[in-house]
């Protein structure tokens, strides 16, 4: 299922980008369903991260593409889902838009049940990030 949500953010690109980079290592700050975050490996362009959420252990290869203002989270060896998540900043007429896009395809019946929880978590995640960026 592909879902996405976007919000206009009243902050500078630098502040929003810093918060998104912080979220790479601390996703639990803006998404309360996430626990036990661990960085397993570092790369020149990102990290390999493990975390727990909704009863699953999730490993993601995270790629930071500053030039295109995109952070991509590819699922690695997940028994329930395959796919990726994207955080993207669009910058037009000096207005920033933050977009979260989740493209996770379920591969088990249990995964299809879990899927129904994703839209609410995703929307809340964007809204929490907006609040944080605008508060700073």
């Amino acid at each position, binding site marked *: 299922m592909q879902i996405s949500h976007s919000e206009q953010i009243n*902050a*500078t*690109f*630098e*502040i929003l*980008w*810093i918060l998104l*980079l*912080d979220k*790479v*290592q*601390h996703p639990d700050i803006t998404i309360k369903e996430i626990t036990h975050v661990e*960085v397993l490996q*570092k790369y020149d362009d990102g*990290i390999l991260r493990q975390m727990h959420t909704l009863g699953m252990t999730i490993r993601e290869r995270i790629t*930071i593409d*500053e030039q295109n203002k995109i952070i991509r989270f590819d699922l690695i060896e997940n028994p329930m889902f395959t796919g990726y998540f994207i955080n993207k900043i669009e910058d037009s007429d000096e207005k920033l838009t933050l977009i979260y896009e989740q493209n996770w395809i379920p591969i088990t019946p249990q995964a299809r049940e879990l899927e129904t929880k994703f839209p609410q978590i995703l929307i809340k995640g964007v809204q929490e990030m907006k609040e944080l960026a605008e508060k*700073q």
Partner: protein
Amino acid sequence: MTKTSIEMKQLVEEFIKITNVKYEDQTEKIKQKSDLVDWQFHVGTNVIVSKNANREDRVHINVNMRFPPEDSKLLISKNPSFSKTIMEVSEICTVCNMGHQWIKDGQIIAGLAIFSHVDEQNLNRISFHNVWDNVARVSGHVQKILRSNFSSFSSKNNLTDETTGKTMYG
């Protein structure tokens, strides 16, 4: 027995005095601006020790780095080292169990706060000085990260009396 806010303040002041580091009780100044802080000490160049009114269970220790304008100019996304620096700072703070927050001033990134806390039940000289040392050590390491990623970064802290209005808890 649970320590009151005043008892914690007295203990903290005693622990600061032992070090002979110059300090200032900024409680009155802070209270004129905000009710969010019970009491606050400015210690040495850039350490703030404070207690939030909404947390009875802990004392915060915060190193408040303010960047001079020439350093802030380097902290922009056009700088190729920008993301790398942010990630490295985040990593060292995570590894050392410290909180951190970049400080915005208008359109620029004007500083960085590194912070931790001592629990009320654990508030003694040893734990207080350990946390203080750790916050200061991580802040020193962060300055090294900034200097190694931005060759012209001076890391001169511009603190003076402004810290009274700049505490992230206030």
